C-alpha cells in the first residue's frame, strides 16, 4: 500500500504565551481547522524569553492549512500583533494524507 500525499502549508508561529487566547480565536475565525501548541522559550529582537515565569514564556503554534488560509493568517497576525509583540512566523510546504482535514473554512 502506498497512500497518496497532498501538498499543504504548515504555518509555524512563535510568540509570547500571553497572546494564546487571542491567537486561538483568530485562527478559528480565519478558517483553520486545528492547531498544535508546544511550550517554548527563546531569544530574539525582544530579548531573552527564558520561560522562567509567565511573563517570559513563549508558545510555538503550528497550523496545517491550505495556502489561502496560511496567507490570511500571516497577514492578519502581522497587521495586528507584530508591531507590539515578540512574534516570528514561517511557512513550510508539507505533504499530508487527508488534505480535506486541512482546508480553509469547513465544508
Amino acid at each position, binding site marked *: 500500500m502506498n497512500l497518496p500525499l497532498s501538498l499543504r502549508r504548515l504555518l509555524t508561529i512563535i510568540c509570547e504565551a*500571553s497572546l494564546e487566547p487571542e491567537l486561538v480565536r483568530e485562527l478559528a475565525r480565519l478558517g483553520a481547522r486545528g492547531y498544535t501548541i508546544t*511550550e517554548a522559550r527563546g531569544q530574539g529582537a525582544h530579548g531573552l524569553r527564558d520561560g*522562567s*515565569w509567565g*511573563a517570559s*514564556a513563549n508558545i510555538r503554534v503550528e497550523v496545517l492549512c491550505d495556502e489561502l488560509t496560511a496567507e490570511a493568517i500571516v497577514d492578519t497576525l502581522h497587521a495586528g500583533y507584530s508591531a507590539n509583540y515578540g512574534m516570528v512566523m514561517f511557512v513550510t510546504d508539507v505533504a499530508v494524507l487527508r488534505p480535506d482535514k486541512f482546508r480553509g473554512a469547513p465544508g
Partner: protein
Amino acid sequence: MPFEPVILFFVLGLVAGIVRSDLKLPGVVYEALSIFLLLAIGLKGGVELSRHNVADLALPALVIVAVALLIPLAAFPVLQRLGRLPRADAASIAAHYGSVSVVTFAVASSYLASRGEPAEGYMVVFLALLELPALVMGVALARRGAADTRWGKLFHEVLAGKSIVLLGGGLLIGWLAGPEGIQPLDRVFFDLFKGMLAFFLLEMGLVVAGRLADLRRAGVFLAVFAVLMPLAGGLLGVLTANLLDFSVGGAMLLATLYASASYIAAPAAMRIAVPEANPALSIGASLGITFPFNLLVGVPTYHWLASHLAGVI
C-alpha cells in the same frame, strides 16, 4: 536581627542567577508556588473576615481604594514629563505601581509575625481590592481620548485573572468555611506557607537576575523612580492607616501595599490592554528594582514609619 531570614532565599536566587548557575526552578514550579501563595493568603484573609462584620470594612475599603488611585495619578505625569516616557509606557508603569505585589505583602506579614507584632487580619481583603483599580486607571491614562480601548478584555483579564480568582476565591472559601472548616487544611495552607514563600523568593531571585539586562534599558531615571515611588507610597499608606485608626502592624501592611508594585496581575493585564507599552521598562522597574528594594529596605522602613508616625493624624 534587622531582616527576615526568608529574604536570604531571594538573595541566594539572585546570586545564583548572577553567577549563571544551572539552578533553575522550572516555570511550572513558579506557577504552582504562586497558585499556592495566592490561595493561602486568600484563605487566611477569609478566615479572618469570618470573624468580622463585613459591612464594617466597607468604609475603610472605600478610603483605601480612593487614596490608592492617587498613586498612578501622581506617577503618570512624573513618568511622562520628567521621565520623557511615551504615554503608553508612563501609563503602564503607573498602573504597575498603583497595583500591589502579593509576595511583598507576604514578606511584610512574615516580618510582623516574626516580631510578634499584631495586625488586622482582614488587610488581605484590601490586597484583593487594590489589585484592579490602578490597572483600570492606567489604561484610562494610556487611552485618554482614544476610542478603541479594549475595556472588556481588560476587565476580563483582571477579574478572571488568576490573582483575583485565587485571592477572591480563597477569601470566599475561608469566609464560608470559617476557622473550623479550614482547620483540616491548615497543615498545607498555613504551616507550609513560610517554607513555600522561601522557595518562591528563591525563584524570584533567579527571575530578577535574568531581568537585570532590562534594567539597563530602563535607565537612570526609572531606577530612581523605582526607589522613590515606593517610599512615597509607603508614607501615604502609613498616613491613610492613621486616618483609619489601624494598628501599627496594619499601618505597616497598608504602607507595603501602597509601596509595592505588581508583577503578576499588572504585566498580564497591560500586555493585553496597552500592548504598545514596552514590558521591559515596567517589569524592569517593578521587579528588578522595587521588589528587591522593598524586601531588603522598604519593609523595615515602613515598619519604622508606622511605629514613629502612629497617631499623628
